[in-house]
């Protein structure tokens, strides 16, 4: 199949960027979208042009390195699929596909399709953990946890930290990312102990990084490759308000 691409090219954070047209004449429906970009890059190299830079690592949808706006949608048109697992069978011969970086105030562009998502790490560093040091743990079965609770915590814990939620949000909010970690840890007895401090610290850090607030668009849930529920955001906001009121 022939695929036409309009790809965002930008030399650095301060330089202006633009969309550039390319054609990949020998694409295959079995290729992943990133393999299509690999083929494009080998083509560009052979023609003496600069390849398109993009982040990717595991290519199995779990590391969260990749993240592109494909045809205007974070990770592209297939539901619950990171762009590394999006395959060309989702497109038709002759399609023109626009490829852009994840855009948000808190995700500055580094080059082409590569963005800086270190703000996410700083949100986790604010209190996205259980304060336990190595060696101090009781037996793993000492505290029974209802299966449903463990399953729900796991649903939130599957977040891969890709940033699609931010890119899809009209406000550029990191609420789904932050709420997922708060819910995961808060649901479990091990994490519940520090819940009040955790919520305050993480939400404040999210603000400090320049992420927007949540206006319940739920675009984040729609593009999340792991299908994480916006229900966590409501609990996070309730808990945050409670923290404010109780000082």
């Amino acid at each position: 199949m022939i695929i036409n691409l309009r790809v965002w090219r930008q030399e650095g954070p301060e330089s202006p960027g633009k969309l550039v047209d390319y054609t990949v004449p020998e694409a295959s429906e079995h290729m992943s979208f990133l393999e299509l970009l690999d083929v494009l890059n080998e083509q560009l190299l052979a023609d003496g042009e600069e390849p398109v830079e993009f982040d990717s690592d595991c290519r199995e949808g779990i590391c969260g390195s990749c993240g592109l706006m494909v045809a205007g949608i974070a990770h592209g048109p297939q539901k619950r699929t990171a762009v590394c697992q999006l395959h060309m069978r989702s497109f038709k011969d002759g399609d023109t596909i626009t490829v852009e970086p994840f855009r948000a105030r808190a995700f500055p562009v580094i080059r082409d399709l590569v963005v800086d998502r270190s703000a996410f790490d700083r949100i986790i560093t604010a209190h996205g953990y259980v304060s336990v040091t190595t060696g101090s743990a009781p037996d793993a079965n000492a505290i029974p946890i209802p299966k449903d609770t463990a399953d729900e915590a796991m649903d939130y814990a599957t977040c891969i930290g890709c940033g699609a939620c931010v890119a899809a949000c009209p406000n550029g909010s990191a609420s789904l990312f932050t709420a997922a970690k708060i819910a995961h840890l808060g649901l479990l007895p091990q994490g519940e102990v520090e819940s009040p401090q955790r919520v305050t610290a993480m939400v404040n850090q999210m603000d400090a990084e320049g992420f927007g607030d949540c206006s319940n668009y739920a675009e984040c849930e729609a593009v999340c490759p792991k299908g994480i529920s916006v229900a966590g955001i409501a609990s996070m906001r309730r808990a945050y308000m409670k923290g404010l009121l109780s000082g």
Partner: protein
Amino acid sequence: MGSPVAERSQSPRLDSKVPSGRLQEKWDIYKNSVSLVSPANKRSHHILVVGSGLAGASAAATLAGLGYNVTCFCIQDSPRRAHSIAAQGGINAAKNYPNDGDTIWRLFYDTIKGGDYRSREANVYRLAQVSNNIIDQAVAQGVPFAREYGGMLSNRSFGGAQVSRTFYARGQTGQQLLLGAYQALSHQVSMGRVKMLPRREMIDLVVANDRACGLIARNLITGELERYAGDAVLLCTGGYGNAYYLSTNAKNSNVTAAWRCYKRGAFFANPCYTQIHPTCIPVSGDYQSKLTLMSESLRNDGRVWVPKDPKDSRAPEMIPEDARDYYLERRYPSFGNLVPRDVASRAAKKECDEGRGVGETRLAVYLDFADSIRRLGEHTIRERYGNLFEMYERITGDNPYKTPMRIYPAVHYTMGGLWVDYELQSTVPGLFVLGEANFSDHGANRLGASALMQGLADGYFVIPYTLGAYLAGTRQSDQVTETHEHFATVEEEAGARIDSMLKNKGDKSPTQFHRELGRLLWDHVGMARNRTDLMSTIDAIENLKEEFWERILVPGSADRYNKNLEFAGRVADFIELGSLMARDALRREESCGGHFREEYQTPEGEAARDDEAFADVAAWEHTEQDPALHLEQLSFENVHLTKRSYK
């Protein structure tokens, strides 16, 4: 390579430092007698941890928690993305919660036997001993392992074991354990005890006064070469499976940091031990950039088969039972579909080589869930493997609830790595190697769910003791700073390599070279090896190396994000490693675990070990000429070496 007699004796350079005493007491004896570093002195020690996977993140978090000053590096944009995240199936521990007869001894024994008796008894026993602590630690961090309705932790079976000792979090166990370690690391970052430096690649080791004293890292955003001095360097950089180009490893997984250490004096042990995982999604075309694993846990409920008649071209659902060959169940009745990985992979290769492969390329076998779905219902199967089935469907377009998966072996893990002693210290004092990057615990074949166990054992529970022993023996005067002349020299050499790749302006991309190397290794240093092919491969790789430096084409410049420049440096190192892998495979004139030499097999086609001549660790030293071989003889005082049988 020296005379055969000299070859087979114990090298004086390889002191394993295994403590004396009964196997069960060695680790306690070690801990009781090891020197400690006082809390005040811990603060004055600066430790460099390279890599943020399970081994790196757990080590960095634990050492910082003890009071050491830690700097941690990773090549990804966040430590949470290290490749441990992709491990699916589970983590072993000898908790014996199911009360099915498991003990520390059994976990030890299964691991030694699974490794085909090519690992060190004392290391493996220690691994089994600390396995239970890992589960406790992970649960305390909030790792949401699967649970039963009573609220207790759930277990499942994995290959090479007859007990259920594997803890799991759906098909994302690596992700959850890594996030636990990452969060523990983030906790220490928030306390100011760890400085985390993402998007940095270690490109050389600095050795001064015969000790590892720092490293040179490339900042992958600015391209700057940066110097970091430390009292010890912990290499936690994973395995070298990407030497084959196509593997289940992440695109950025590479051998460069380990290879640079090898060139600075760390011995490389057993490079020919690579694990080819039996259940991966088959290759679909030339553009393929990597392969995707389907967790071994699927073999709990999936049955592997091929049509009996090679010409049977019916859809799998249309092939009746009596026209199918469930060859694992037939050949290995007691372990059936749960034979260890090396055995399952070779069996799949045999079926395909003999023409019974399925699918378009005929390089695949079926993994069928129809029986389990009938027995347990689709709901149960969905609950156990839902995310894996979804992943399979996304990649292939086929629905495994309706039609069997097609699978084929792929490179997945490397048991070889830098040689380390019982303290995880390499042959360069002050350079410690943890996790997949070392060679130590899995022998010639790793059992499923043991990689997560080893990475975390090394980081959480071994290195905190053994690093102290080293530091307690160092003096203040051994410490050097970034201004030491060795830093300048090493930085200059690293810069010169980068420049020569950029200035070459050849006509072949790093990926083209990588694919060629991968093809050579897969064909001749893959699932089956023989003398003739190994000899010709060593020559072919030598030619490829020459061609690389003549024809490599790297676009752009060194002072910015430049993925092709990163790749080129890694491919150059993979080419050199490839040659060592072939040499090591040639030297080992026996078959064991993942290393199968066609000349050494039983009449039934099983691996034929030669314990008389090869119960050893081959550790290679870099020299200006051919690499020099050193041997560590393995002594087995507690297990009896038997022919590994899963029949």
